[in-house]
Each structure stands twice: as structure tokens, then as C-alpha cells.
């Protein structure tokens, strides 16, 4: 009796979590102009629209530009800082770590107001650079967390062994530390890109009409005139995130094999 109730609850809760996401996907292929079931017929017209209508196409391009920029920036800054935090001799390492993770906690709207004011003061309002910097702030914590985790997993004796075998500190870093940290860096990059891809609030505050991202575009079309193009865009986002996750998993496995070998 209790077993049955448990199973029912588990299934119901899991469906509550999964079904909404699954439900939106088929609508990307509807031939109707309504974002709704039942689907009268299947077509790729909404994907065509994403590619042909200027504001959708531009928003996809913008998302790729801004996402790449924010990813590169946050991965470089975050990885360097994670390496720095690993070494001893940094004053207040815990405080620094907390500050580095803070962008994850501060409400996006609050940071948005601040960035809107500050970017205007340094002439970066409504610029690609401004949006990239803003997104990178949000991406940094993810990079820090995943790179730090990877670095923590490195057994220091491995690095000592490399040194004892005659490798200089630079070569130890290049041949041992970096390859072992790589999965963490890739995971961090994937999280960073996905974060930027999904970012709406900061973009609302700091981007001009020329920097509208896909997420931002979806936000306004859900708000103003919802159409199956939103479902098509959602599918793109899901597929994009999924591909990135697979890429991360693949690198992780490959590195694991290299380490084992």
C-alpha cells in the first residue's frame, strides 16, 4: 500500500518536472499559426521563419557572438583565478571565493540596474562589449566552481612525481596540471555558454536593439505576440544545450581514458 503510494508520488512528481519541457517541443513543428495542441500538421515553417525574419536571425547571431565572447572571457578569468586560489599565500582565500561566487546570488535585476548606470558612465551602454562583460560576470562563478572542483581532484603527488622525473614547474603545469584540469575547464565553458544563452534580465538592462539575443527575443515575443516560432527557438536552445552537455561529457570521458592509460 505504502509502496504503491510512493511509486505513484514518484512518477507524478517526475512527470511534473519533465512533461512541461517535453510538451513544448512538438509545437516547434506545427503548421498552424497557433502555439497550441492539437497539431493540425507538421512543417518546418517556423524554423524557416527563425532563419528568414530579420529580428529572429539577428538575435541568433547575437546570441552566438555574445555567448562566445562571454564564455572566452569568463573561462580565461575564472580559470586563472581558480589556479591562483589553489596556490597558498593568497590572503583571505575564503572571502575571495565568496566574492567570486556572489554574482550567482545577487538578483539579476539588481545587478542590471547597477550595470545600466555604470556602463553608461564608461560609454559601453548598448554595445556588444557591454553585454559580453555583463554576461561574463554571471558566467564566472560557474567556471570557478567547475575548475576548482577539477583542481581539487588532482592528487598533488602526481605533480610531485612529474617534478621528481625532471619536469620544470612550467612543464608540470602544461603536461600534468592542465590536462587533468581540462574536463573542469570544458564543463565550466559549457555552463558559461549556456548561462549566457539563457540570460534575459541583464540583457534587458544593458543591451540596445542591436544586441537583442535569442533569449531576449523569445522573452518579448512571449510577452507581445506568442507564435510557434517561440517553440522553434526553444527547441534550438534545448538542442544547443544538449549538444554542449554531450561535448562536455565526451571530453570528460576522453580525458578519463587518457588518465587511465
Amino acid at each position, binding site marked *: 500500500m505504502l509502496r504503491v503510494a510512493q511509486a505513484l508520488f514518484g512518477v507524478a512528481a517526475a512527470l511534473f518536472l519533465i512533461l512541461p519541457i517535453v510538451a513544448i517541443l512538438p509545437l516547434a513543428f506545427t503548421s498552424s499559426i497557433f502555439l497550441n495542441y492539437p497539431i493540425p500538421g507538421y512543417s518546418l515553417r517556423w524554423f524557416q521563419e527563425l532563419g528568414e525574419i530579420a529580428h529572429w536571425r539577428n538575435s541568433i547571431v547575437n546570441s552566438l557572438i555574445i555567448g562566445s565572447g562571454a564564455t572566452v572571457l569568463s573561462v580565461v578569468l575564472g580559470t586563472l583565478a581558480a589556479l591562483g586560489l589553489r596556490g597558498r599565500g593568497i590572503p583571505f582565500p575564503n572571502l575571495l571565493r565568496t566574492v567570486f561566487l556572489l554574482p550567482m546570488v545577487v538578483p539579476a535585476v539588481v545587478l542590471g540596474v547597477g550595470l545600466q548606470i555604470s556602463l553608461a558612465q564608461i560609454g559601453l551602454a548598448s554595445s556588444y562589449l557591454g553585454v559580453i562583460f555583463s554576461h561574463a560576470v554571471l558566467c564566472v562563478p560557474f567556471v570557478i566552481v567547475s575548475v576548482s572542483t577539477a583542481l581539487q581532484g588532482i592528487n598533488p603527488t602526481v605533480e610531485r612525481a612529474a617534478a621528481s622525473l625532471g619536469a620544470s614547474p612550467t612543464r608540470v603545469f602544461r603536461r600534468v596540471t592542465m590536462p587533468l584540469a581540462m574536463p573542469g575547464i570544458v564543463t565550466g565553458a559549457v555552463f558559461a555558454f549556456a548561462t549566457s544563452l539563457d540570460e534575459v534580465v541583464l540583457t534587458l538592462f544593458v543591451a540596445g536593439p542591436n544586441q537583442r539575443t535569442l*533569449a531576449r527575443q523569445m522573452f518579448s515575443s512571449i510577452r507581445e505576440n506568442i507564435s510557434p516560432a517561440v517553440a522553434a527557438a526553444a527547441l534550438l536552445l534545448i538542442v544547443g544545450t544538449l549538444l554542449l552537455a554531450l561535448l562536455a561529457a565526451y571530453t570528460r570521458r576522453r580525458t578519463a581514458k587518457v588518465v587511465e592509460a
Partner: protein
Amino acid sequence: MNAVSARQRGRAALLIAPLVIFLGVFFLWPLWLMVDVSIRNDAIGGAFPRTAELIGSWDGEAMPDAEIQAALVEDLRETPQSTLGAAVRTLNSQVSGFRTLMGRTANAARDLEDGQTLDLVEVDDRWAEPRFWQAIQTSVAPYTDRNLLAALDLERSDTGEIERMAASASANRLIIWRTFAIAGSVTVLCALIGLPYAMLAASVTGWKRNALLLAVLLPLWTSLLVRTAAWFILLQNEGIINKTLIGLGWIDGPLPLIFNRLGVVIAMTHVLLPFMVLPIFSVVSAIPKNLMPAAASLGARPLRAFWRVLLPLSMPGLLAGSLLVFMVAIGYYITPALVGGPNDQMISSVIAFYALQTANWGMAGALGILLLAVTTVLYLVYGRLSRGGAPTGA
């Protein structure tokens, strides 16, 4: 060996410096600017620079001395008409009568020839009343608590006491209250679903556990916007839920599920549920497996064993999850904006409204400070809790 060479230290600092600078410029400075803009008071101080410098020393009762009076006259002569106009309008909104008073005095000041002094009371006998001087004194201060007070529907009276604004003037308290209410209901719902779910996931093994965890992680990996859009589609009047219910004959017309509180709470619960499940799961799955059998062997019935052993041991996870959900929920913007109605907008929406629609950064900043303060306190508590839960963790 604790000695760290200066070179090592230098290298570590060099590695960290770029991020420190970057976050300094694009994270901490913006937050500071937001705080600054909400408390800075340039409009009036900028129009009366000389007066601002001197009036601070005035005792607030007797007629200000000649030096201060002369400074005011000088300001009225020198400040450009446009700057002065804006400042006087602001002053007038605090104490009515300022517009005519200042207008008359400014004219007299401009007509004044060099070297002469102006007897202000002679120009307008209202200058003998301390309240006008008091208004100037408080208004020219470089910082003001006006916006912060207004964020809580408070204001200062003419005499400087803090009092509540007229009920019609502002609705911030209502919105703060609503923000807490929505975040609170979402937290409770997440706990009601998340606690048994996490316990179930921790109690099973193999594919069942993996499936239950995947169901939590999949939404976490999916774009927030996609999930909100999905709820938009499900909840609309012609959406699947209403159509199914009508098809089953359970209801005649569509239930109002979207653009209201119910829709916001359902969608936010879905979005935030993983933040509840994961901390609880990590705590529950670390509870030794033999404690429940031990309780049973000592005579505890299943319900009592749950109540006395499993639940207390799960508490740190439940607390951490609830704090996390609540903390994230009070800052939510997108979900209420898309599936909520006008009466479901939370504090973030009001901040966005002030900043994006009316360019009132003072108010946006003040409400932002409030939200930031609450979030920070919750985060500190959360940090302390999760450290306390794992005393061995570095």
C-alpha cells in the same frame, strides 16, 4: 613547512588579479553605483553650491546668519535658470510656497547691484520662517534617505519625522509583502513535493534512483525561458490542461490558470523544485542506512522512526533547500513577467519598471538595495548552515 615564497605568492596574486579587477569594475562598482544613485542628492545641492557649504552649521531655529543669506543670494544670481528651476520644483514638492518665494527672491537678487546686500525678509517675510530654511538645509545635504524611505512607503514630514505615506501614494509595501508571500508559497510547495521526492530518491537504488534524479537535473539544464514558455503554453485558456479537463467533462469552461497568482506559483515551483530536491537529497543519502532499522529494532513504529530519526536528520537539507528556493524566488523577474497578471508582479518587476520605463534610478536603486540586503542576509545564513552541515569540509 608553512613558508610560502614571495615568488609563489606573487604568482598567485597575478593569477587572481584579472578577475578581481574585472569583478571590481563590472560587479562591485555597478552595485555601489546603484546604492549611490539611490542616496545621492545632487539636484538641489548642485543648484545651491555656496549655500550647501555653509548651511550645515546652522542651528535650525533662529534666522540664519548674514553669511548664509549672502551665499543663498549669490547662488540665486549665479545658477543657470534651468538648473534652478528643477531644484525649486523639488523643493516646492516638499514645502509648498517655495516656487513663489524663490521666484521673487531670485528676481530681487538679479536686480541687485554689485556690493549691495539683500535683506531677505524684506523681499518676502516668509524667509523669517525656519521651515523654509530647514527644507533647504535637509535638501542640500549630499545624501538623502528619501528614496530608501519611499521604498518602504515612508517619508519625512516637514519637521523631519519619519511617517507613513498616504495609502494612495505608493504601493511598495504591498509589493514587498506580495513578493514574500509568493516566494513563501513557492518555498512551501517545493518543500512539500521536494522532501518526499528526495527521500524517495535516496531510498531506492539503481535505475529508479537515476531516473528520479534525471527528472530533477533535466529541468535544471533546460533554459529557464524554455521552461517558462512551456508553462505559458500549458496554462493558457486553450492550453493542454484546460482542454484535457474540458475533454474529460470535469469542467465546463477553462479554469483561469494563467496571468494570475496560481500560474506564477505553479511555474515558479516547477522551476525552483530542483533547488529544493538536490540539497535534501545530498543530506538524506548521507544518512547511514542502518539508522531506521536500528530505530525499528529499538521499538519505534515506522511513523515514529520517521519523525524522530529520519526527519530531524533531513532537517539541514530541508532548511538549506528552503533558504535557497526562497532566496532565488524573491529576486524572480521573468516568470512573473510572463505568466503573471498585473497583481502578481514582484519587487524585481517594480525595479525594472523604475529603471527601464521611468528612468527613476533613485527608486530603482532603493528597492534594489532592499532586495540585495534581504538576499545577502539569506545567503549568509545559507552559507553558515551548509558549513555547519559539513564540519569536515574545508
